[in-house]
Every structure is written in structure tokens, then in C-alpha cells.
């Protein structure tokens, strides 16, 4: 894609795509925009791999009993689907790809604060992925993406490779977070006060704080797990005096905040889309900005809600249930604010906006079902059933992936100076949205009926809903193929977009498309807020 787009963009003026030429210029680039594009390609490839594993899983579950693979292969497919999608798609998805490209532009900066660290972060992700996928050569890891002990400490080299891969990829996340915190504080354009920065930047900033503070905890946990596997040290093995539940505490101390690493940037994208496509200032800028910070802060104290039935004390469960309810409030605030922004707007239902509205629809379902799981008595029933699977897919796919798709179609003209065919992009939305509900809504019912997750086989009475779910998964697959086609078609034959096809107000739309090497020809001076649609 690199050379193709460079060649086709050559007739434009000087821009970041034709500033330097050749593969080597891309692999050594320090330009945040080019690094963003590198992340785009990387994340898209991993999404394809993770998606293929998802379709394999759903195909196996089409009927009860063995369908296309053995139980051993199923547990591996499930592990790779989860690990790839979490560590290599959803976590880097918005911050490292869209964030890298647009955070500096939205605050009127030439680049991020530490361009070399930025490039290093991409190599950490690639290196981590290479190490993680090496595990396939050792028979593949079968622990699930959560690596729960003691199952994961059985001297299997595949598990060690997988864990070390996630460890290395974690540095990518830490470096990106660090870069964003410093960039937001130090490189804002004159007049760009903290209460004038776009909500996408606020969301990335809150995310970056979590990335910097929480990821090291995962790194240490994974290191302890690898050390236990290699040297038999006994942190988590009760036979050696360790505690298997301790691993869960460590793991979720990172992985629950990580859920917000995955969803907060999506909130940011949605705030941008809703305002741009309603041509209306955001309702409750301060509430949305500070609710992101509130979520980031409280997210560190709710990890125990993954462990209500793990054997932790009743009191621990009660405290975690209470704190989890508190996270629900800022999340509800955002949804109401977006709805209020639509009021008396001028709403354009182009593909990016459809994705944003689809996000609101799906995320609302994901959000309210979160309350079922935060309520301790009902969670005892739903824990580790398909209800949980449905809930987090509504949040992570219905939320984050919808936002990524919306963001890609929104910023595509800025990134490449070309328009995507809106009709094709809308069709991708239609298939993904419909398919998503067909796939995951039945899983709420399956979970209520009591079907546990991570099951290779199930009772015959669960078959009908599983078949529905599998059909939905194929619809989602078709939707992403259409979406991919829309992007490729736009790259090859898209009509020139001009600098601001949507009439949006944030700074990135004030410069040429594609942007010049250092983003702005002249240093922008900011005199107003980000959404001044008057």
C-alpha cells in the first residue's frame, strides 16, 4: 500500500506520503502520520488473522459435538482469537493508529514529543507479535488470553512464547501512552488551552495515563508467569506455597483498566463524529472530558469484579461491586451527552455517522448488561457464561471496532486526500451492524440459560441459538470484506476530497489533505473551542 499510495498521490502537492520515497523511508520514519499508517496496516493484518480464528470458532460451534476441529485445536483457536484481538488489535487500534495520526494535528503540533520512541513503539508491537506467534511452532498456547494459573504453569514452551510476546507488545502501549501525555501537555499550539482541546485528545490523554500506569503491572505479572514456567519458582503454584488467585488479582489489576484503554479512545472518536455529522457543538464538553478522567481513575479499583466467585472474601466482592457501579455513571453521562448533541442538529447520515449511531445502539446494550454483571448476585449466575461473552463483545466490538470503522471512514479523506464511496461504506455498516446483533444477541440468551463460555461442545438445547450466532458471524465477515473493499477502492480510485469534505471544525481539517510533512504550513493560532458550529 505504501508505494501505491505514494505514487498515486504524486500529482498532489508535497505531502507526508511523498515527502520521502521507498520502503526504507517508511521503516525508519519519525513522522507520526507515517507511523500511524504503519499501525493501520499492522492492526488491519492482525484483525484479519484474529477474525479468521473467530470464524473458525463459530464454525466449530455451528453444531454440538465435533464439527470441523478437535477440542485441542478449538482451545488454541480461542486463545489466539482472544490474544491477537486484545493485544494486537483493540489496544493499539485507536490510540496508536488514529491517535498517532491525529492527536498532534488536533492540538496544532508538528509531531509527537518523542518521535523516536514513537517508532520504537511500533517495533515493540511487531517484535511482540513475532514472539507471540512463534508459540505456534511449539504446538500453540491453549490457556485462553487470560493465562490463568495453575493451568498456564505446566512447562509448555508455547505458553512462554505467547506470554513474552504480550510482554514485549506491552512496551508499545507504554511508549505510546508516555508520548501522548507529554505531547498533550507540552506541544499544544498557542491558544490551545486544556479546555479547548478536542474530546478525542481528552480521551486519548485519559487512556495514556492508564497505559503508563497499568501496563507495567501486566509486564511484571507476565514476567513472573514466565519465570514460574521456566524455573518453577512458585509464585502462583500452591504446591510450592504460591497462590493461583494472586495471579488473577495481578492480571485484572492491569486487564480491567485495559478495558478502558480499549474503550475510552472510542468514546473520543464518537464525540468527534457526532459533532461533525450533526454540525453542532458538543453537549457537555466538560462533563465528557472529565468523565473520561473519572473513568480512568476509578478503573483501577474495580478489578475484583472479575473474581466474585474466585474464592475472594464476601467483603472484597461487595466493595468491588460498589465501585463498579460507580464507573457506570460517567459512562451513562457520555451516552446522554451524545444523544443531546443530536438535538436540533443538522444530521448527515454518511457512513461514519452510521457507525457512530451504531456504536451508541450497541454500546448502550453493552453498558446496561454490564450492570447485570456488576450486581453481585446475578453475576454469580452469569459469570463465565456466554452472557459475559456477549457483554464484552457488545462493548469491545459493538463499541471499539464500530468506532475504529467510523474513524477510518471519517479521517480517510484527511489521511489520503481521497473520498471513499459512501454507498459501499454504508453497506459495510449494514452487514456489520446486523450481523453483530445476530451473532451476539443470542449469546445473552445462551448465557442466561447457563451455557458456559470456552466450551468446545454444548448440550443439544443450545444448538439453535449457536447456529444463529454462527450465521451472524459470517455476516460480520462479509461486512468487513465490504469495508476493506471500500478502503482499497478509495485508495486506488477515490475522488479528491479537498481539505475539509465534512465541514468539521477541529484543527486537522484546516490543513491540506493529505497533510504536509509537518502538518501545518503556518503555525496555527487557536482562538476558540473545538466545535464552534455557529
Amino acid at each position: 500500500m505504501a508505494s501505491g499510495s505514494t505514487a498515486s498521490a504524486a500529482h498532489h502537492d508535497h505531502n507526508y506520503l511523498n515527502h520521502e520515497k521507498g520502503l526504507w523511508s517508511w521503516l525508519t520514519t519519525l513522522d507520526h502520520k507515517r507511523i500511524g499508517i504503519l499501525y493501520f496496516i499492522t492492526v488491519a493484518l492482525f484483525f484479519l488473522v484474529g477474525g479468521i480464528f473467530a470464524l473458525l470458532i463459530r464454525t466449530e460451534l455451528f453444531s454440538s459435538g465435533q464439527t470441523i476441529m478437535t477440542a485441542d485445536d478449538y482451545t488454541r483457536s480461542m486463545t489466539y482469537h482472544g490474544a491477537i484481538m486484545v493485544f494486537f488489535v483493540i489496544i493499539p487500534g485507536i490510540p496508536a493508529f488514529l491517535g498517532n495520526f491525529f492527536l498532534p494535528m488536533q492540538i496544532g503540533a508538528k509531531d509527537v514529543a518523542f518521535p523516536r520512541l514513537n517508532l520504537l513503539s511500533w517495533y515493540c508491537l511487531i517484535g511482540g507479535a513475532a514472539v507471540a506467534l512463534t508459540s505456534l511452532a511449539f504446538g500453540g498456547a491453549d490457556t485462553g488470553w487470560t493465562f490463568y494459573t495453575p493451568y498456564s504453569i505446566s512447562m509448555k514452551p508455547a505458553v512462554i512464547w505467547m506470554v513474552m510476546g504480550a510482554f514485549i507488545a506491552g512496551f508499545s502501549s507504554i511508549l505510546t501512552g508516555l508520548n501522548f501525555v507529554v505531547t498533550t501537555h507540552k506541544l499544544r499550539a498557542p491558544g490551545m488551552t486544556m479546555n479547548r482541546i478536542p474530546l478525542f485528545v481528552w480521551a486519548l490523554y485519559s487512556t495514556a495515563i492508564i497505559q503508563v500506569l497499568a501496563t507495567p503491572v501486566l509486564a511484571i505479572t507476565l514476567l513472573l508467569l514466565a519465570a514460574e514456567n521456566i524455573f518453577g519458582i512458585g509464585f502462583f503454584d500452591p504446591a510450592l506455597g504460591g497462590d493461583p488467585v494472586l495471579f488473577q488479582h495481578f492480571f485484572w489489576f492491569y486487564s480491567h483498566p485495559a478495558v478502558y484503554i480499549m474503550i475510552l479512545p472510542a468514546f473520543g472518536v464518537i464525540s468527534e463524529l457526532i459533532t461533525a455529522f450533526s454540525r453542532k457543538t458538543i453537549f457537555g464538553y466538560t462533563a465528557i472530558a472529565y468523565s473520561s478522567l473519572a473513568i480512568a481513575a476509578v478503573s483501577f479499583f474495580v478489578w475484583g469484579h472479575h473474581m466474585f466467585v474466585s474464592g475472594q472474601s464476601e467483603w472484597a466482592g461487595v466493595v468491588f461491586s460498589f465501585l463498579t457501579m460507580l464507573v457506570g455513571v460517567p459512562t451513562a453521562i457520555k451516552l446522554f451527552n451524545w444523544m443531546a448533541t443530536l438535538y436540533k442538529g443538522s444530521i448527515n447520515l454518511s457512513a461514519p455517522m452510521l457507525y457512530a449511531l451504531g456504536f451508541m445502539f450497541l454500546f448502550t446494550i453493552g453498558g446496561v448488561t454490564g450492570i447485570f454483571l456488576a450486581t453481585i448476585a446475578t453475576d454469580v449466575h452469569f459469570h463465565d457464561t456466554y452472557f459475559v461473552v456477549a457483554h464484552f463483545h457488545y462493548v469491545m466490538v459493538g463499541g471499539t471496532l464500530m468506532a475504529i470503522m467510523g474513524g477510518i471512514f471519517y479521517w480517510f479523506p484527511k489521511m489520503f486526500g481521497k473520498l471513499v464511496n459512501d454507498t459501499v461504506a454504508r453497506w459495510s455498516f449494514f452487514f456489520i451492524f446486523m450481523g453483530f446483533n445476530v451473532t451476539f444477541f443470542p449469546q445473552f440468551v445462551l448465557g442466561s440459560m447457563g451455557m458456559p463460555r470456552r466450551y468446545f461442545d454444548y448440550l443439544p438445547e443450545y444448538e439453535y441459538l449457536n447456529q444463529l450466532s454462527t450465521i451472524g458471524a459470517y455476516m460480520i465477515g462479509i461486512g468487513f470484506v465490504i469495508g476493506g473493499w471500500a478502503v482499497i477502492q478509495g485508495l486506488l480510485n477515490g475522488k479528491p476530497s479537498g481539505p475539509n469534505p465534512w465541514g468539521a471544525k477541529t484543527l486537522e481539517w484546516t490543513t491540506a489533505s493529505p497533510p504536509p510533512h509537518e502538518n501545518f504550513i503556518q503555525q496555527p493560532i487557536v482562538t476558540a473551542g473545538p466545535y464552534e458550529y455557529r
Partner: protein
Amino acid sequence: MNRGSERSVMPQMKQQLSKQVKRAMALGAALVAMLADKSVLASTLMPPAVTKTAGEVDDIYIFLLVSSLISFIILIGGMIYFVVKYQRRSATDKTAYITHDHRLEFAWSFIPLVIFMFVFAWGWKVYHDMRAFPENALEVHVMAKKWDWRFLYKNGKEVTSALDAKNERVPATMVVPVNRPVKLIMASEKISANSTDPSDRPVLHSFYIPAMRIKQDVVPGRYTALWFEAEKEGDYWVFCTEYCGAGHSAMKAKLKVVSNEEFEKWLSAEGGGEMSLADVGRGLFGSQACIGCHSLDGSRLVGPSFKGLFGAKAHKVEGSSVDVNEEYIRESILNPNAKVAAGYPPGVMPAYAGQLSDEQILALIEFIKTVK
């Protein structure tokens, strides 16, 4: 935007709209009524509830379902309504400049908070009942391994899975009496008790009875517990819900709830009552030389007496106090110096880790329970 032309069609639109709103409200009310009817819910969404606790969980579930539906209709109904009403008409539409509204923002922060706090408290109350173990419960020991369950009754009866004529695994069936609390004391064990293969180690499992809405992880190296009181006779599924490897989904058991008479008859038949767990424990008490240091009559020997020990609250140990339960006895056998009884010197009793099987430890615990 030119709102003038809109004004002329407003009354007609309003009329249509109010008709639609009424229709939607009637539909919503019907839906809510349907959801609130527990029998409908039970037969469609959840397996029939067979304990009082399960019924209480379902009440919360229904409340959450109805309030979620209402919130969803408000949010997404509002969204769709605005999207239809305020569709872009021209590229130069003017829009209202509304930045915030403190009253509205307070309302949509505070009302969700109140609802969340309410369900939190309700969920806590029901959960508290789940974790309050009745004193007089029938105790059954549950042993979990990759990938099977077995059940040990106090009278020595053991239930395991079996292979049928077609070499397929028939899950173990745990039999319990109706209308009597049952307490499960659960432990995780190796596939083979005397294997030295490092990859054969006990792993996490989770014991889940969907019909009772209860679930508890089975954790290697300690006991965890669950209780229930079935109100209906019948057969119910038990699933493993903590991922434990390729055989995870095959790790099932059956729960059979029968009348009390039938249960007693079943319990004493086939292998029941010959050698109870406590009897085995009494034998170990002698053969493992516990008898040299621990009396059964309350007199002080080298170590504390077992008389009345089990169930003691706030039993004084060096530096703190513990409730004497299965977990404490187990720890004191395997690692005696972890919590030494106050007034006794540490380092006297040898550690029995690796000397006793899981079942022998259970037998000793059951024996100590009988020393009243």
C-alpha cells in the same frame, strides 16, 4: 435551517407522532408485563429456578431487564427520533448552539446513580444469603480434576463417572434430598493421585448449577464451599465454568434431587455406611501418630486437644485468631507452623505435606469434626 416550512406540517406531524407514541407505549407495557411474568421468563430465558435463592436472583434479573429496556428505549428511542427529525436538509443548515444544561446533566447523572446503588444493595443482600452457610447442612465433598467430578459422602459412599457400553463417559450423579440444605466442600486434585508428571497438577475449575444460579471456583490448595436447598425433585446439570483445558466442556455432572426417604435408602446402599470418612480418619489418627500429641478428652498433651476444636470461633493462634474450619485444619496438617495455637511452641509438629493424600486429609477433618 428554514424552519418556516416545517411549521405548517407540524400539527399533522404531532398528531401522527402522538398516535405512534401511544402505540409504542402500549407495546412497551405489554413487553414489560410479559417480562415481569416470572413463569414466562423462566421457561424462555433461564432454566426453571429450583431454590429460594434462585428465585431471588431471578427477581433482580427481571428488575434489571425491565429497567434496561426502559433506559434503552429512552436513549436509543431519543437518538432515532432526533436523527429522523433533524436530518440534514441543506449544506448550510444553521444549528442550535447548546453547550450544556446543568439540570439535565444532574438528572442523568443522579438517576442512574440511584438505580445503580439500589441494585448494588439488592444484589449484595441476595449474595449475602448465598454465602451464609446453614449450620445443619448435609455435607458432601466435591473433588474436581481434569476433567471429571466425584462426590464423597460422609458415610464413605463415593460417586464417580463411568464408561458405558459404547465407551462414552456417563457423568457422575450427585444425589441429594429435597428441602434440606446441602453444603459442598470442594477441592481440586491431580488426574492421578500418585503421578509425578509435573504437568499433572491440580488446576482451577468452577462448580455451576444453572438451575440454582450458584457457582464457585474450585481452587487448588484450598477448600471452597457452596450451599443450596432444592425445593423441587428432579435432575439438573452441573457444569465446569472455569476453563481447564481441552476437556473443559465435557466436565459435567448430574445432580439428582430426591425425597428424603429415597435419599437415605440410596445413601446406605452400595458401598455406603461400611467405612465412614470419620472412621478412616480415626484410623489415621492412630496410624499417623497424631494420638501421641493430641488428646480427644480435652487434656493438654504436646499439642492442643481435638475436643470441641472444630467450629470454634476466634481460636487463639500466635499473633491473631482464626475460626476453626476445614481450611484451618488442612493448613495445620500440611504446614503446622503457619498458625500455631496460642500457648504452644512452634516447630514441634512435623509438616505432613506430601505424606497424606487429599482424601486422607478429608478423613482426618471429618474425624476431628466428630470429637465434640
